[in-house]
């Protein structure tokens, strides 16, 4: 029987696989995508100092290290169920069923939508879909697009589309309704952006120099925010206009925008149509934890982590024997944090399987997760550290409860 199955070959899964292989574990990595790298694949942004973070290159480096270690990575394999039986883990896939002593879930994140009339039309896609089409498959999602939803992810991907020579006619808010919540409220979106600007990559600093670091803008806030938006890499970022409808019969032909009040109400008579052939929906990311949920692992909904996350410790153990988590399944953060979590998980797994792992190297790996987090150029949620502390408290409560039962 194998020592370890890792589900997900993104930054967390691959880093874990490499670390675990270096400690002599027998590993199988499974991923449903056709290339290794996960969400890392599409990433492309300029870091302060002028270096480019090229997700395709980073994925290639990880894959090459994995290849050199002779790792067994199966792509295009979908897992539909997992079970713990007689102390080992069974992983059911569309090919065959695999078995191992331990299981690491590194399934990453999924995109949440915003709901806009017309969003089922061909040509409407999640913003991540446009990113992958552009950077990974090198096919333009269209000639001219509109992005609905103003947040860290959509701004970063808008820039990537721009670099690839794809026209982004506007980044605008979604219309206010019960689904879209605060993402449709100009003042709330403005505040969220102001927070991320402090730790943002150069792309945001550039945007910030115009918009967010400007004291006048801050004071005047959203009230005097230009109705036609502030330009970021030539793309109008509209915080006072919302897409109220996507137009088209057989596919996307345009969007209807309207000016909204500071609290998101549509001002009638302000409607205008922008022609475009694709639309990106940017509702943010949430941890894709479905496989963990099948195991009965306790879950906690923590807004700062992006949704419901499986209970886990700083060393990436869950309360279930032999089950570990790493990467965005534990909360929405950047790829570098995912990598350091993957390394930590692998060390915990090796230790639990009886390998000689010094306590110091495990605690150093945990410390590296925190330092990577503090140094991160992209922070998806301003209070991610608060979220991490909340989860740690739940973990300690859980551990105390377990001890009390044992006593």
């Amino acid at each position, binding site marked *: 029987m194998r020592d370890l199955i890792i589900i997900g070959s993104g930054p967390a899964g691959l880093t874990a696989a490499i670390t675990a292989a270096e400690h002599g574990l027998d590993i199988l990595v499974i991923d*449903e995508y056709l290339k290794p790298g996960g969400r890392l694949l599409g990433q492309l942004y300029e870091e302060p100092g002028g270096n480019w973070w090229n997700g395709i290159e980073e994925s290639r480096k990880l894959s090459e290290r994995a290849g050199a270690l002779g790792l067994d990575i199966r792509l295009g394999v979908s897992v*539909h169920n997992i079970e713990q039986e007689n102390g080992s883990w069974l992983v*059911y896939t569309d090919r065959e069923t695999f078995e191992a002593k331990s299981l690491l879930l590194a399934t990453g994140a999924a995109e949440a939508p915003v709901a806009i009339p017309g969003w089922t039309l061909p040509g409407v896609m999640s913003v991540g879909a446009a990113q992958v089409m552009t950077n990974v498959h090198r096919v333009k999602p269209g000639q001219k697009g509109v992005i609905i939803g103003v947040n860290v992810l959509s701004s970063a991907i808008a820039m990537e589309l721009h670099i690839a020579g794809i026209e982004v006619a506007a980044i605008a808010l979604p219309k206010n309704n019960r689904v879209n919540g605060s993402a449709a409220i100009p003042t709330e979106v403005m505040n969220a952006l102001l927070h991320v600007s402090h730790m943002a990559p150069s792309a945001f600093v550039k945007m910030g120099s115009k918009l967010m670091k400007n004291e006048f803008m801050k004071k005047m806030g959203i009230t005097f925010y230009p109705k036609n938006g502030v330009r970021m890499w030539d793309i109008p970022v509209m915080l006072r206009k919302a897409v109220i409808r996507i137009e088209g019969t057989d596919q996307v032909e345009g969007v209807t925008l309207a000016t909204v009040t500071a609290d998101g109400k549509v001002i009638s008579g302000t409607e205008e149509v922008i022609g475009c052939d694709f639309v990106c929906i940017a509702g943010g990311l949430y941890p894709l934890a479905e496989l963990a949920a*099948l195991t009965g692992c306790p879950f906690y909904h923590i807004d700062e982590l992006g949704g419901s996350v499986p209970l886990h410790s700083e060393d990436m153990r869950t309360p279930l024997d032999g089950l570990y988590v790493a990467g965005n399944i534990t909360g929405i953060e950047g790829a570098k944090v995912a990598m350091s979590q993957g390394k930590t998980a692998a060390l915990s797994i090796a230790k639990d399987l009886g390998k000689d792992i010094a306590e110091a190297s495990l605690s150093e790996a945990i410390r590296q997760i925190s330092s990577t987090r503090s140094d991160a150029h992209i922070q998806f949620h301003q209070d991610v550290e608060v979220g991490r502390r909340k989860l740690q408290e739940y973990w300690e409560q859980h551990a105390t409860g377990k001890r009390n039962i044992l006593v």
Partner: protein
Amino acid sequence: MTDRDMIVCRCEEVSYGELVDTAGQFACNSRELKLRTRAGMGYCGGRTCRSSVDAIALAAAERDNTQITLKYQPPVRPVHFGDLGAISND
């Protein structure tokens, strides 16, 4: 297309109007809203619309942070009957 006609669950084509009305009429939590409307019960297993269904239901009921609002059940991907099979020994 009006807001009421807007699709929320793409797989089962459940509209915003139907979800809001049902949530209002029965003061549903997410799970009940899903069972009454079929939102989130289609091909994708609710991966796309779960946050939207949650948001509509949360207008009527408060979130319990210790529970996943819409339960996951195996299989989490559609499975062909022919693929349900043996354990590998490799």
